């Protein structure tokens, strides 16, 4: 009885008695979720357009952030460094398309998946060799990102909101809005959607797959850069971020591989779910549940919807 009580009653009592803590936990989950969603967004873009499950997205985040900070440390002005980093991401996208994707066209998914693994190793090695393996501090101030915190007095308590988190949420929303407008109303965006629907049909109406892939990998690179800046501003820029990027996998699965809104909703569910779970139920099992809770949440959802919340229905024919 005791154990049932501490599972089903106690946490809710806690939530009711200290609503400010609940709001704080929700907010932290929300911000974490936004950042997961940003990483997942990069995955979704590439998966939609080229059918590649891009494992290297996580390391692209680290690589972009490292390039930015590394350039700044070499004495390049902050915004010039930003521009150069975007250039670097373009070169990277072009090189990946040329060297990796083109020879592997039409191979099974798992081979392409493994190729992005190779890419991950390559980028880890390159990043560490060029910029060193030590954690770096993101140049948040130089990019005019806000600092400090706001204390909200609500519900008889104090909720602390970091300004950088608010900025991250706004930037993420703006970016998602911009991306959906881009997909909906521009020529390239339409071509991207066509490729996502069917490679063959897109080719037959004269869309160049190679070009589209470069563009998509480039956009994913820019998304990675923004994610890297946001995440780097909250903690240090280091290769540990790569492990965090693995969290994007359950997010992706939850939302469905091919859905941009799915990535966002999935990110929020995972982010909030794992924070709430850790804060209210974590102590029952000894804490540190964040390392696996996200995967279990995704697993439970998958049992009921195997294609994810917003994924296209999987139809199998023989």
């Amino acid at each position: 009885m005791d154990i049932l009580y501490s599972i089903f009653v106690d946490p809710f009592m806690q939530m009711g008695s200290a609503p400010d803590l609940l709001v704080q936990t929700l907010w932290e989950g929300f911000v974490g979720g936004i950042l997961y969603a940003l990483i997942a967004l990069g995955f979704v873009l590439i998966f939609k357009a080229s059918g590649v499950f891009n494992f290297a997205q996580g390391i692209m985040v680290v690589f972009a952030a490292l390039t930015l900070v590394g350039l700044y440390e070499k004495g390049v002005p902050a915004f010039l460094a930003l521009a150069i980093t975007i250039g670097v991401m373009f070169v990277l996208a072009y090189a990946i398309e040329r060297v990796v994707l083109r020879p592997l066209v039409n191979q099974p998914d798992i081979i392409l998946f493994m190729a992005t693994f190779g890419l991950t190793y390559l980028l880890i090695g390159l990043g560490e060799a060029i910029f060193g393996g030590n954690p770096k501090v993101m140049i948040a101030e130089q990019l005019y990102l806000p600092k400090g915190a706001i204390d909200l007095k609500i519900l008889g308590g104090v909720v602390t909101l970091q300004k950088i988190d608010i900025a991250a949420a706004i930037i993420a929303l703006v970016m998602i809005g911009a991306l959906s407008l881009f997909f909906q109303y521009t020529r390239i965006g339409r071509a991207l959607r066509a490729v996502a629907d069917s490679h063959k049909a897109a080719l037959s109406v004269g869309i160049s797959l190679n070009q589209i892939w470069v563009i998509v990998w480039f956009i994913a690179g820019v998304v990675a850069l923004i994610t890297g800046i946001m995440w780097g501003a909250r903690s240090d820029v280091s290769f540990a971020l790569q492990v965090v990027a693995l969290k994007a996998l359950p997010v992706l699965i939850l939302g469905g591989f091919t859905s941009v809104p799915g990535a966002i909703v999935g990110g929020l569910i995972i982010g909030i779910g794992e924070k709430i779970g850790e804060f209210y139920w974590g102590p029952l099992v000894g804490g540190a549940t964040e390392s696996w809770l996200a995967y279990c949440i995704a697993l439970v959802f998958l049992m009921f919807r195997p294609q994810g919340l917003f994924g296209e229905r999987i139809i199998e024919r023989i």
Partner: protein
Amino acid sequence: MFYREAGQFKTSYAADMAIFPILQDRIGLAVILAIAFIAIPLFGSNFLIQTVMIPFLVFALAAIGLNILTGYTGLISLGSGAFMGVGAYACYKLTTIFPGVNIIVWILASGFFAAAIGVVFGLPSLRIKGFYLTVATLAAQFFLQWSFVRIPWLYNYNASGAIEVPQRLLAGIPVTGANATPVTRYLVLLSIVILLTWIASNLVHGRIGRSWMAVRDMDIAAELMGIRLLPAKLLSFAVSSFYCGVAGACMMFLWYGGGEANDAFNINQSFTILFMVIIGGLGSIIGSYFGAAFISILPTALKFGLPAMGIALSGPVAEHLNYIILGVLILFFLIVEPHGLARLWQVGKQKLRVWPFPY
């Protein structure tokens, strides 16, 4: 030239369907076994055995395990590192609770515990497919890794939280623990690996293996042909985890000799084994050996080979270079031969057979 099958006539169906139908292959296999069992223990240095051969064999075993699941049944798993951990902890618990029983029995028995856990985490595989399934196995990886740290009963409430390998004897000779020589550990490991390879080979060439391959190629079609999906998939999970578990127990007891298991069985270990399977060749037992050799020996070769060639590198630079070279080689091999080293091996054999003609 010498690799010809001319004159070797098959007089029975069994001879025709043999795994090594060509006499030269059988001679080659015998030579390899002789080298492994006699030449290496006699002439190999401790360094060769401890740093090259033992890791190679442990990883080969784990790669065979994952290959059964991923290569033969088509279910991608990123939890093999954790299943190895289950094997290691099971073996540790068993040998400390029942110290009188032979350690080799416990190493093999620990595989069954890993198999049981594998079946539990394999249950979603009936509904979830492809990359979605990888998340289920990632859940296994992270949850088990967390349990290894959080459940002190598993490591006998040691203050260090690590597995401490006790000394165990086999016919009066120490097999595990600090006093066991590399040669003894190598021979025990080699015997286990060869026994399990033989079993795996028989499994995948028989009815069970064929049902796995049917499931891999298309599970709905396989179901229509009368293969029961759930037993086939769960058996694959069980056998695969069994192999991984034994590999994990071997890793702790015959290679590391104890240590912080959370480091040894983390997510990177799972990735490494998946690499081996893919680089070696999906759905190929010999490919698992090639992949294990490639991935486990390459870092050692780079670490000790480059300075020997006169390229002196400091620690961190060598580490980075290691990553870069590994990444480039993975990409290179995937682009040159997406079906793995096993396919290259087959192509090479075919070329030898028809040499000097192109076909």
